[in-house]
């Protein structure tokens, strides 16, 4: 379980997060949605101890993120930031392999190799495994980064807008893979999404944020209503249910 208790955050004098409390139980997919600047990425990076905690407490599986040794946390939680840029000339296989670093501190066992192969296969990277990252397209690069986070094999996976640069096929593939590891392996996925229909279809729970506060929290069917969406994003949307799935029409 991820426990966030009374967390506030300021950047210089600008408040980013206001007194956020949130419990994310083990297992399942939680989607974070909300307008730009709502504080979704800040919350994610606080949970993943990328930023020092200013006010409040955060723990994962009971381990407080600010005092637990970094190398231990790396076996429990993996994060993919939205603005990850790879400037090094690494081959796809090497990059994905570094996802295994927390486990063997650099020594790759046969088991590690199997996990790397599996991650490559899952994101259709097997044919690109010996290519340098810089020679890939934006979407292929994004897949390699997600595969690296997958290879880390942690129970908790935080993804900040991982669908960026992905075409429809791979966006669907990624969401299906996440669903698979959440259902099959009991992994906990927290994902920042801007495509509300992806969130509605794949997530078990949606947490909506606005100006540093949690403004709505619930199952997609409860949360995806015209009133709630208006309160979050500030404009009218239609919600239709097709085959039991809430679909948000937000184009008009």
């Amino acid at each position, binding site marked *: 379980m991820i426990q966030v208790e009374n967390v506030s955050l300021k950047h210089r004098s600008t408040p980013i997060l206001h007194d956020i409390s949130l419990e994310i139980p083990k297992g399942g997919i939680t989607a974070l949605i909300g307008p730009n600047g709502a504080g979704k990425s800040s919350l994610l*990076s606080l949970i*993943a*101890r*990328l930023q020092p905690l200013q006010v409040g407490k955060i723990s994962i599986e009971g381990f407080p993120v600010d005092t637990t040794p*970094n*190398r*231990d*946390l*790396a*076996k429990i939680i*993996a*994060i993919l*930031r939205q603005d*990850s*840029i*790879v*400037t*090094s*000339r*690494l*081959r796809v*296989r*090497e990059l994905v*392999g*570094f*996802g295994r*670093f*927390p486990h063997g*501190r*650099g020594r790759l066992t046969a088991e590690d190799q199997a996990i790397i192969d599996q991650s490559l296969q899952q994101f259709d990277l097997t044919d690109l*495994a*010996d290519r*340098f990252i*810089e*020679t890939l397209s934006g979407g292929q690069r994004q897949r390699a980064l997600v595969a690296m986070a997958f290879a*880390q094999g942690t129970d908790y996976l935080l993804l900040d807008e991982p669908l960026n640069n992905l075409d429809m096929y791979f966006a669907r593939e990624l969401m299906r893979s996440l669903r698979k590891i959440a259902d099959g392996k009991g992994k906990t996925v927290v994902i920042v999404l801007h495509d509300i229909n992806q969130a509605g279809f794949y997530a078990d729970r949606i947490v909506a944020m606005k100006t540093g506060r949690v403004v709505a929290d619930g199952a997609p069917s409860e949360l995806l209503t015209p009133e709630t969406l208006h309160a979050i994003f500030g404009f009218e949307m239609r919600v239709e249910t097709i085959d039991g799935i809430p679909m948000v029409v937000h184009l008009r």
Partner: protein
Amino acid sequence: MSNAARQQSSRTGLLAGFVLAALFMLSLFVGVIDVPFHRALADAGALELLLISRLPRTLAALLAGSGLAIAGLIMQTLTRNSYVEPSTAGTAQSAELGVLLVTLLWPSANLFAKSIVATATALLGTSVFLMTAHRLPPTQPFLVPLFGIVYGGVIGAAVTFVAWQADLLQYLSVWTNGDFSGVLRGRYELLWIGAAMLVAAWMIADRLTIMALGRDASIGLGIDYARMLQLGLVIVSVISALSTVVVGMIPFVGLVVPNIVSRLMGDNLRGTLPVVAMSGAILVLGCDILGRLIRYPYEIPVGTVMGCVGGIIFLWLLFRRPAHA
């Protein structure tokens, strides 16, 4: 590492090893006094010459070259910028400042004490550079090397000013322009500490590769980012300070060698680090031999030769971008 990468790595490593061995032998037999190969071991005088002068000189070039190349590589990794190296980022200049100050304030200090002070000032100077470099916007990759050049220039100017005031300008060139002609047995051994730094770098190669992915990725993978940054700083500073004090500054090695190896083999340091070290040794040893031969029997300091050769290689690197970048 993938199979393709490993094969390429061992092939390149083998080739570099052969070239280095050949230059090593050549260096032993190039100099003002002619030592024919067949007489080297039979003639006591020839053997003494080899042991007192030629071998130490060759080893010094080898150690300084490999060390400077690795220092450049680590610096590029820590700044995530391929255009910085110790001599263009204030490290070498800070070391010069340290050795100059110790010469002024404590003239009787031996080489070891000078090295310690130079290492301390190099550490300080490089820390300031790195802290500033990390604050520069990553969207402007050329700001980091530009800042480094200006910063190094300011410290260098301070060094010149102090030396001028103290009437030590002549002396200053001992450190600002690398030269192996003064290397004798008993006067270069400090460089072996640099070899220990190479071993340390090799041991943290994976961590350095991850650090090149950025702070967030490093922390996410369980690396103590702040401590590794400090360790990297120490390695860079010790290597640069030792080479500055013992043989003087040699430019461009830390810049061109890691860039060439990166283009050929990528940036997975576990595989490339030994090749970078060997290539650095090849370049410096090669330039030193060149300096001994160009106007034989006189010598041109290796710093001068490297300034030309390194500059040409660097320009070539800039103009010949990799085909797919």
